[in-house]
């Protein structure tokens, strides 16, 4: 594979960091993604996130269930272990997930404890496109006043996330990826405006 594991993952990490620190910032990793030369059952940007963040010290879960090809690929490339959704440090919810399945994943994900809120799950969620004009309005740390997040969440997803994040600092962080090599993050601190949810 023509991915430079040193410099490309550093590049992708900085994009994720920038998006996590400034929710609503959409990063483009299409340049690196175009050099992936292996057949994948997920978006290239999703796989780059896995290469950047996963190793044998953390665990992951792939949704929907039965995507054994992707599970094998991620295990082989990162040495990370596939575990149940409620134990996983990273949950990869691919495009094939229904709204219901993605919302369920959020509900079942680890949220950490009040003493160790960092022991929570990060969900990598695939959506068709991070270029929606409608989108969602975010407020919170990292955002000067309001930020436009270019994807409109369903009411079900919104409620599942609200429920999960209601007792800060416990909660889950989202990395959203799209099919054109874009990614953006929604940390647990970001507040979504319900009026903007469809």
């Amino acid at each position, binding site marked *: 594979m023509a991915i430079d594991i*040193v410099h490309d993952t550093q590049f992708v990490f900085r994009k994720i960091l920038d998006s996590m*620190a400034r929710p609503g910032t959409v990063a483009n990793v299409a340049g690196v993604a175009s050099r992936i030369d292996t057949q994948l059952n997920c978006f290239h940007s999703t796989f780059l996130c896995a290469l*950047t963040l996963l190793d044998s010290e953390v665990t992951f879960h792939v949704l929907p269930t039965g995507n054994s090809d992707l599970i094998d690929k991620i295990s082989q490339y990162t040495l990370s272990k596939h575990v149940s959704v409620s134990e996983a440090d990273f949950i990869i919810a691919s495009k094939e997930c229904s709204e219901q399945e993605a919302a369920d994943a959020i509900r079942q994900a680890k949220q950490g404890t*009040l*003493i160790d809120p960092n022991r929570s799950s990060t969900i990598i969620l695939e959506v068709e496109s991070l270029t929606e004009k409608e989108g969602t309005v975010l407020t919170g*740390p990292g955002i000067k006043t309001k930020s436009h997040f270019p994807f409109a969440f369903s009411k079900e997803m919104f409620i599942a996330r609200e429920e999960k994040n209601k007792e800060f600092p416990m909660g889950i*962080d989202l990395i959203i990826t799209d099919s054109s090599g874009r990614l953006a993050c929604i940390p647990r*601190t970001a507040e979504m405006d319900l009026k903007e949810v469809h």
Partner: protein
Amino acid sequence: MNQHHFAFFDEGSKKEIRRTILKAVAIPGYQVPFSSREMPIARGWGTGGLQITLSIIGREDCLKVIDQGSDESVNAVSIKKLVHNTTSVEITERTQEATIIQSRHRIPEIPLQGGQILVLQVPTPEPLRQVEPREYMTKILHSEEEYSGAWLQLFEQIMKYGRTATGADHPVYVNSRYVMAPSPIPRFDNVKMNESDALILLGAGREKKIYAIPPYTDVQSLAFEDYPFAVEEFSGKSCRFCGATDVFLDEVLDSATGDVHYQCNDTSYCLEQLNSHEKAKEESSYA
């Protein structure tokens, strides 16, 4: 060519630190534990900051390292050399040019910008350590947002000295949730953390903690209504070299004469001021 791996660290170490940084950003002010690596400098000499810098830095970055406001102190120079020797990234002294600024005890005078990351070295990340020596207990206190100890420390200072007497490292409330040690920066710099344009990452190597303040986050210094927070007072004083008045000044005692002088603590800022004065003088003398 150097024979080191890029940025000194193995990729596994970088990954773990990168994951920790993301969690730190998602939970502003919360100290995320990490497995602090052995570094070629001793723990307590900036290893936390150095580990963050090495884990985030890329070939395109431009690095500035300062120690107590100085670009040229031994600690700053050795950290710069280590990072440069293992990454070949550009090194600068100009705050405006840097994409990553690693610092000990100061936030530069020139306001930070959106594209920059400030990495602060932290000796004691736990603001409650003086009132509670047990790590597990301070973790419980943070989980319960039980900060009486931090308030009481300030109250005792007021009882003793008539004002809060924190020399540096005056505790802050981050995002109205966590009380955090801002690292030993002067109170003068505390205000720069509030609603900062730049991302601020803090690393404590010896104590094995990483924490963060995302941009545009509410950071308030702890204070009482009747004893409001106050920064160091420099009214009527100016830098003896460049004449700056609205900066953090060092007090220098001339032991021979007993005279007291004041000078900019931020050396690169001072130098830039001097150069611009010189340039202005030159231009006016030509005309």
